[in-house]
């Protein structure tokens, strides 16, 4: 089972344990398992926090295709059984992976309810809302609302998204996709009791109209996690992006490392010398929505240290920051802070590295 699924189960368990205490209820954590030859995952879901598992195991579900998966998940959400005391789920979590985000979109379009994306903090409580459409402007309390927090692109602001009924329509489930790594899984407990409900595979042939004819592995993906040294370029390079990237590349190579990028550099759309443009790729982005790296050395060049970036690198052994501003957040989570202009500091570092290596070479 994917790590993000274990994390979501753990968080769902914590949310519902608190919900049941706060509201004196006995509501459940329900896991949805689809695929082929995946029965063992249903049992694992229970051991990791689910009370109930809906399972559909069928050869047509071996690969994830949005149409059949969406239809079946919607059927599971709305199915009527004697044991069910509800019409629709209250809350719904999906992983914020490519497939998970696509699936969350189509499921919530099918269920006609609200969806927040890429959340990393969740809590359930009553909400006091004044909204011109939902409450005619007057304050009203909506009970048992899932508060879904997502960091914005800069990593400096959190939006809290709520899914709230309109005067005309009841919007449930309240749903979101969850950033991998945001929550902790529960330890596996084989003694946890739960129920597996087999949901029949019942779809018209029309829902299987997309065919997957083949797959191929990608060979030249960049894997930053395999390097001992990462030199990451941030928006501090803005005044001369080509020079900035080229200096960071040189420093990375001098130390046997590789180039990473902050999110700001990925979105800035700098005009670069053609030979350098290839280095601006999302594959090099480090942060919550990019790569997570734990190198021996992380050199953050012109990076302020927004939380969404920090999450991708704060486990590095040693963090060195180069920045003109000593008040930036990264000052509190680095080991060495070199105050200065990167365009002057990096050439000096490179020169000393060359001298140091010459010294080593002459000693050996």
């Amino acid at each position, binding site marked *: 089972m994917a790590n993000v699924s274990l994390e979501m189960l753990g968080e769902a368990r914590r949310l519902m344990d608190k919900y049941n205490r706060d509201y004196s209820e006995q509501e459940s954590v329900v896991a949805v398992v689809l695929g082929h030859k995946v029965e063992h995952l249903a049992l694992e879901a229970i051991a990791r926090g689910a009370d109930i598992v809906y399972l559909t195991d069928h050869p047509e579900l071996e690969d994830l295709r949005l149409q059949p998966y969406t239809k079946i998940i919607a059927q599971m959400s709305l199915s009527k059984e004697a044991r069910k005391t509800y019409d629709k789920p209250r809350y719904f979590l999906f992983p914020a992976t490519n497939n998970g985000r*696509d699936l*969350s*979109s*189509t499921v*919530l*379009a099918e269920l006609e309810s*609200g969806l*927040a*994306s*890429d959340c990393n903090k969740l809590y359930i409580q009553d*909400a006091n*809302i004044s909204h*011109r*459409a939902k409450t005619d402007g007057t304050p009203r309390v909506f009970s048992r609302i899932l508060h879904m927090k997502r960091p914005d*692109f800069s990593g*400096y*602001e*959190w*939006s*809290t*998204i*709520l899914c*709230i009924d*309109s005067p005309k*329509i009841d*919007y449930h489930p309240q749903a979101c996709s969850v950033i991998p790594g945001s929550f902790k899984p529960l330890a596996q407990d084989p003694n946890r009791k739960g129920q597996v409900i087999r949901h029949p595979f019942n779809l018209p042939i029309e829902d299987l109209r*997309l065919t*997957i*004819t*083949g797959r191929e*592995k*990608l060979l030249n993906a960049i894997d930053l996690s395999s390097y*001992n*040294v990462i030199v990451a370029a941030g928006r501090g390079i803005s005044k001369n992006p080509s020079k900035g990237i080229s200096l960071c590349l040189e420093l990375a190579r001098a*130390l046997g490392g590789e180039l990473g990028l902050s999110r700001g550099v990925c*979105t*800035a759309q*700098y005009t670069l010398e053609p030979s350098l443009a290839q280095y601006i790729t999302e594959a090099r982005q480090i942060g919550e929505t990019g790569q997570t790296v734990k190198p*021996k050395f992380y050199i953050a060049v012109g990076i*302020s240290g*927004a*939380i969404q970036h*920090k999450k991708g690198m704060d486990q590095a*052994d*040693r963090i*060195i920051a180069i920045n003109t501003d*000593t008040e930036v*957040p990264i000052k*509190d*989570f*680095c*080991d*060495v*802070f*070199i*105050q200065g202009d990167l365009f002057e500091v990096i050439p*000096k*570092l490179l020169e*000393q*590295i060359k001298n140091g290596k010459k010294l080593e070479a002459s000693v050996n």
Partner: protein
Amino acid sequence: MNYVVVTKGVPDFRHGKVVFKEDNTLNRAATPTVMNPNDFLALEAALEAKVKYGGTVHVISMGPPPYKKVLQEAMSRYADKLYLLSDPKFAAADTLATAEALSAAVRKIGNIDVIFSGFKTADGETGQTGPQTAWKMGYTLATHVMEFSIDPQLKKFNATRAITGEVEFTTGPLPVLVVTDPGFQSQYKNATQRLNLLDLQAQTKKRAQSFEEFLTIWNANDLGVDEWKVGIKGSPTIVDSVDPIPRAPSERKARMLIGTNLQHIQEAVQILLRSDQ
């Protein structure tokens, strides 16, 4: 063949255009509006389809009246016809309510074989609107598309999709909504196609100069939408608050060095080279 491209106006995040406040948050009012950069690829895919299979490219955007500039920008890449969905009733829409308005416009244009959409807007970044529009239209959905082709006779499409670490080859029936991956590449195989491409590009650039001749503006009445399904009324989700993310508590004690001090530089290099072993 008929194609629709859906596009959105977003803050211009390019260096030199974007304006940040002191706390590093976006100053939206001071930042100009441009077409969402990922939408360039949706337009490129639509142009490729027109080059190879002929037809008409309709570009739609939902926004206030000044956002017609976004459609002009789209036309400078490629468009035959432009549609701005503009009405106070459409404002403050989340992805579900946006998909509702876009679907209504696609139905009003009629007979659309392929809808092209870019992946994720630069501001909202949900990536939800394309898939939700496909679902409301009942179209086959292909996301993260790197390469795309159509068989107009068989009314089928082929799409190469990017999944993490691998590519997937898929085929299915039209009509389809294609979400182009940021790595999407158009493929031109022969001189005829390339010459056709150049002609179409020249024509659209000329059209863009007087783009308003090709622009239709539709409001909520024109689309016949249920007012409780679009805009702020039709959005299940609301942004309740925006708060600064608290700075993480201090985790490491930094050795502070001055970049102009040679000894400090040497100290830093000593640390870096020592670890090399």
